[in-house]
């Protein structure tokens, strides 16, 4: 779908706007399905090797095949993150791994290390190459270099501004992907080995232990010696600790500007995040993108999208480097505090319009009397109090206690299969 912008809106520029791809993380097969159901055009996953989330579930080749088949049915794409910086011990097996990705039908690999790029060109000729943000690409000449090397898409560094994205798109005809939502390295991506030095875990091969979010004290030495007797502390007992940890990125309020920048793919971070997180965030961006593309002139940012994003947020949010360089307000010095925290309570499996009864698959403990909220990719969005619940044989239950147990309950408004039911986490 394309739209011709008015002169006013484009400040003298007149061009076609293309709908950007919405790219979501999928930590496992179930998350992949939810991401696609809730509006992702593409998902990125990790395999058993060569990815940067060694603690994530990650996909076997069989699971990848199932994921690719599901994605194909729904017109979506599947990318695999192979974005480590390899050491020698990682090189044997690389060729076989990549050619298996090719056979599985993966659309693209996200890759940082030229050793993997070069191997993939030979071993996986049908798989597109997307240059990872781990390369910290900031300038259009570097983008041009990678284009000449056969890369079809560049994921830009998280340090680029909106202006720099415009310049890159002007100079080089290549797909550009940027992160629009989620947690961020506060370092240039790839240029951090804190985990290696603190814990012997290799951050650039998936071992990152998030040392940037630990607490530090800041000192200044009096001479060229860092001993205690020669140092002064640059904090008082009342001060918060020093930290490198940054707020999370959120561009939901700037979807029109992001679309006008010409970015081809909007990427959401978070292969380790929950189904509830992925569904909620994807849903909000999907609605914002579709709303703008349908009618840019009457586009209004909906309060509901902001609220939805807030329900999935893990940390305070900001806009990264897009508009101005981050300052002291963009770091998390005070103890992290979550305003609201939600659980995925149940999944709608069936709904009977005549009786208003839904069959819900339990995902977290809930009971009659609790307030829950239904939401879904096709517009479901309402709150209600849980009334009487029964099992599938109509036996009354005092609570939905068992994972994946199916219960029946009355819902106040129509729901659809795969709508989600969430509730506030109980304070522990």
């Amino acid at each position: 779908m394309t739209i011709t912008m008015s002169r006013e809106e484009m400040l003298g520029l007149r061009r076609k706007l293309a709908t950007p791809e919405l790219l979501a993380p999928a930590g496992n097969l179930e998350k992949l399905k939810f991401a696609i159901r809730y509006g992702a055009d593409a998902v990125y996953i990790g395999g058993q090797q060569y990815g940067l989330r060694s603690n994530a579930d990650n996909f076997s080749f069989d699971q990848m095949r199932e994921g690719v088949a599901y994605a194909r049915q729904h017109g979506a794409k599947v990318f695999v993150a192979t974005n480590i910086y390899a050491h020698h011990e990682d090189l044997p097996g690389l060729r076989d791994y990549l050619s298996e990705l090719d056979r599985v039908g993966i659309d693209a690999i996200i890759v940082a290390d030229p050793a993997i790029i070069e191997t993939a060109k030979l071993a996986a000729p049908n798989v597109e190459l997307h240059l990872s943000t781990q390369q910290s690409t900031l300038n259009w000449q570097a983008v041009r270099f990678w284009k000449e090397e056969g890369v079809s898409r560049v994921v830009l560094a998280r340090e680029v501004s909106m202006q720099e994205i415009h310049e890159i798109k002007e100079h080089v005809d290549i797909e550009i992907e940027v992160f629009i939502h989620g947690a961020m390295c506060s370092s240039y991506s790839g240029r951090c080995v804190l985990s290696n030095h603190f814990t012997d875990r290799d951050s650039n091969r998936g071992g990152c232990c998030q040392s940037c979010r630990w607490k530090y004290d800041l000192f200044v030495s009096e001479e060229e010696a860092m001993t205690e007797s020669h140092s002064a502390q640059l904090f008082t007992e009342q001060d918060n600790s020093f930290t490198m940890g940054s707020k999370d990125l959120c561009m939901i309020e700037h979807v029109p500007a992001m679309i006008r920048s010409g970015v081809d793919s909007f990427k959401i971070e978070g292969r380790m995040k929950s189904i509830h997180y992925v569904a909620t965030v994807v849903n909000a961006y999907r609605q914002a993108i579709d709303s703008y593309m349908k009618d840019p002139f009457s586009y209004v940012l909906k309060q509901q999208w902001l609220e939805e994003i807030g329900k999935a947020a893990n940390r305070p949010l900001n806009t990264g480097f897009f508009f101005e360089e981050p300052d002291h307000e963009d770091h998390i010095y005070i103890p992290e505090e979550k305003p609201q925290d939600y659980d995925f309570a149940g999944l709608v499996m069936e709904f009977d319009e005549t009786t208003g009864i839904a069959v819900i698959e339990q995902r977290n403990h809930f009971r009659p009397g609790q307030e829950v909220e239904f939401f879904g990719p096709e517009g479901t969005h309402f709150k209600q109090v849980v009334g009487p619940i029964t099992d599938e044989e109509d036996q009354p239950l005092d609570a939905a206690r068992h994972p994946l147990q199916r219960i029946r309950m009355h819902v106040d408004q129509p729901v659809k299969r795969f709508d989600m039911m969430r509730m506030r986490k109980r304070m522990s």
Partner: protein
Amino acid sequence: MSQLHNRSSESHKPELIINAGSIDEVRRYLAAGVDAVTVGDLTYAERLPGSMSASDIAQAVQIAHADGRSVYVVVNKIIDNRLLDGLPGYLRSLEQAGVDAVIFGDPSVLMAVKDHQIDLKLHWSAEMTTTNYMTANYWASKGASRTLLARELNLEEIAAFKRHADHEVQVQVHGITNIYHSKRKLVKHYLNHQGRELEPIHQEDGKILYLIEVERPEERYPIIENENGTHIMSSEDYCYLECLDELMEHAIDSFYIEGLLKSVEYNETVIRSYRQAIDAYVSDPASYECQDEWLDAIHELQDPGRELTFGFLFKEQVY
């Protein structure tokens, strides 16, 4: 192995390098015995002991070349669009100054050299991401004649790197290393958060800002903030002096001393110790022994708050 020992030792004499921040430092480090110095301009380099203009660099080249030594220029910045306009001109001025090589990490340097046909030798260094020979050989095929290895590699990996690399390999053997680099001004932000301003308390005054992680009270991590952002440095100083013979057996081409955050006297001492070790090994590898006095001289000037270690030389990392 036997093949290595059969080659003439002279052809294997590795180069000894240090970074210098001024003409005076260039002179003193050459006098102390390095074969080459690296210098740079902070506009195009991430962190330096001192920023030198193109004309300073030209002077450094004259001084070094008069004595048969080399000057390499650090152009390792993560480059943004704003810097692209000036880059070819800067590289041209380095070519005209006759520098012996330029150390780069960003592909835009390759594009500038190619587009403008600038005749410069190139050394590839992407800092902590230079981790395998296949990638190094890739950059060599794009024009690099040397790779500067990541500091988080062990001896086995370093040896394999050299065995498989089709070009020169440089290893840092001494000093501090960068372990985190952000575009954000983290010290300034932290002090602003406290309602304070950052005073000019950087290393020009011999003062060093550093961090202590709450659970590691003995480890002090220097933090350098400059126009390129924030650089957190290792709490330890690498010292591979006792393993230098092993590295020479593996035919490593170049040994780098990182002089950042150290006094000139300290760096001169380090140079002299490594110089003696290299010369002793090359003249008679069979009877080479690392001398205590070389190490003692360094220990005497070593900051008691910073340990000398073998870095990752004998470590296994997990992930």
